[in-house]
């Protein structure tokens, strides 16, 4: 109850940032939806980024989880991600090729990933309407698709495997119907 209430507040906070006309593109926009349960005290102090927070922890090693990205050639890359960091940020810090056109502001679908194990998928908070609106437009959408910017590292998902969907598609093929915009 407590957790979900704060998650909602988090979602709203993110939305307000997005709707603010002068919203800058600072890292504040990466504020993860459900890092609250771990970092609420820190967040109340200041909006430092998740990555910075992780380094303030005394036992850094314990606060990292293992994440594996599988790219569209099937190549795997295992990285350690600090709790509280989004998968989009983690990918970029580790040179994993995951697009992030809107830099985590929930305005595009380029950081689309597929959670490879449904059990892990079920451990994630449900996507918000806003995330679903973006997933509508993602290429190769699957039952366990999420946006990388909305998956936040937490100990429950230690070991999660994320596939970056294959982008190959023949646009010129006869009969191909592009999605409406």
């Amino acid at each position, binding site marked *: 109850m407590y957790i979900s209430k704060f998650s909602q507040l988090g979602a709203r906070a993110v939305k307000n940032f997005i709707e603010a006309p002068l919203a800058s593109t600072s890292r504040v926009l990466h504020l993860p939806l459900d890092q609250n349960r771990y970092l609420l005290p820190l967040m109340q102090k200041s909006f430092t980024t998740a990555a910075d927070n992780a380094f303030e922890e005394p036992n850094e090693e314990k606060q990292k989880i293992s994440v594996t990205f599988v790219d569209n050639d099937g190549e795997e890359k295992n990285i350690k991600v600090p709790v509280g960091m989004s998968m989009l940020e983690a990918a970029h810090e580790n040179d994993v090729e995951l697009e992030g*056109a809107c*830099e985590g502001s929930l*305005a*595009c679908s380029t950081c689309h990933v597929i959670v490879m194990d449904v059990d892990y998928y079920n451990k994630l908070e449900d996507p918000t309407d*806003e995330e679903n609106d973006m997933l509508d437009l993602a290429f190769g959408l699957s039952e366990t698709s999420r946006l990388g910017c909305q998956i936040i590292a937490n100990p429950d998902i230690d070991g999660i495997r994320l596939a970056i969907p294959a*982008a*190959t*598609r023949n646009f010129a093929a006869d009969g191909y119907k592009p999605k409406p915009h």
Partner: protein
Amino acid sequence: MAMSIALKRLSRSFSTISSSNPLRVCVVGSGPAGFYTADKLLKKHERAEIDIIDRLPTPFGLVRSGVAPDHPETKIVTNQFSRVVQNERCSFIGNVSLGSSISLSELCAIYDVVVLAYGAESDRVLGVPGEELAGIYSAREFVWWYNGHPDCSKLDPDLMSTDTAVILGQGNVALDVARILLRPTFELASTDIASHAVAALEKSCIRKVYLVGRRGPVQAACTAKELREVLGIKDLYVHIDEADLLKTPADEEELKNSRIHRRVYELLSKAASSGASHISGQRELHFVFFQKPDRFLESDDKSGYVSGVRFEKTIVKENTESGKQIAAGTGHFENIECGLVLKSIGYKSVPVDGLPFDHHKGIVPNVGGRVLSDASGDRMQFEKGLYVCGWLKRGPTGIIATNHHCAEETVASISEDVEKGVLIPMSSSQQKPGREGLLQLLDSRNVRFVSFGEWEKIDTAEKRRGMLKSKPREKLTTWRELLKIASE
């Protein structure tokens, strides 16, 4: 002499690359398709030197002139595009127009690879009587107007002689346009909307907007995000006829197969059944389904001006050939009176001299981005070194991200051709001049190009002007101003 000045002007962003046999690439158009192509080519080919040319002095194409001003988060992608030009092997050369500054054959003679990504800068026409009446605009023109595109800053649509606007089409562009007409102007005033547009919208008398589609709510072409937004406008009465929401078995099937149509349909149903009553003075948005425009009506008192649209009621039925559900007329007509019509029925690409073009589809015939010169024979003939990406390649649909995949495909085709050895000449005597050749030609024609550094001057000036008005930027909206600031 003038040449050396031109080169000097570019020296900050350009560097001479001495390695042998570079791949000299020109990308035409600096919108998402052009930038994603450049980005992917730079990553894939260490020897690629890329010039992105654009007919405007400003980069980013529709991110600047198409994306609605109240969608700042969608424009964040320009950060990524700007980083692409920071690469020393890539440069932006604005204010250069393919077709007038330089011809396609000249470009192909100068570069190993030419990628056309100049989009769709014209409009589909309905082809019904009265389309030329005053008060009828394409949504593209209207969008360019409020986004401060220098070609439409003088459009000055009359928003004061009428209280009703009809928008033809129900895609995202139609929804954007409806939202701009209906949203409280104080909310728009703090966006990067052109100031001439805010001034006109503040005085606007438009109270009622009709969004008209030929087919039903199941086939609506918008996305859930845009629909949610327009339905959520403050103090707006939304009307949807509940009878229009009835589904046929074919509709059910269509919804089952499309998540996006399902979610759009759900939002429309929810809005229809919300039962909010109309409070007088409230602005109104009417979704009108199953109506196709038959003709535009001319005003009796004001000759040459539109006074309404006559629609034919349609039913949606399956086309036996395509399997698609299409609208068919029923012979029943009705009129909607209005003084402003915005046609949002699709953009259209414009060919240049010497470019193979499929006028029916409005695209350049291509296979995976390779331009087909002749598809009539048994063997497909390609134009050597010529490629397409974005709307010119696949038609005017999709979101920014669609271009990411589209560029990936075109770049894969280029890579294949590079590996086959057909693009880079073997001996240095056959090398094409690339950038230097382009600049020489532009110089000989007195074309005053705009470098990325010069665009940054425009960018800084716009942001500074915006700050005074609490806007993220105040766009420069005329060619004269843009070029003046660029050369300061």
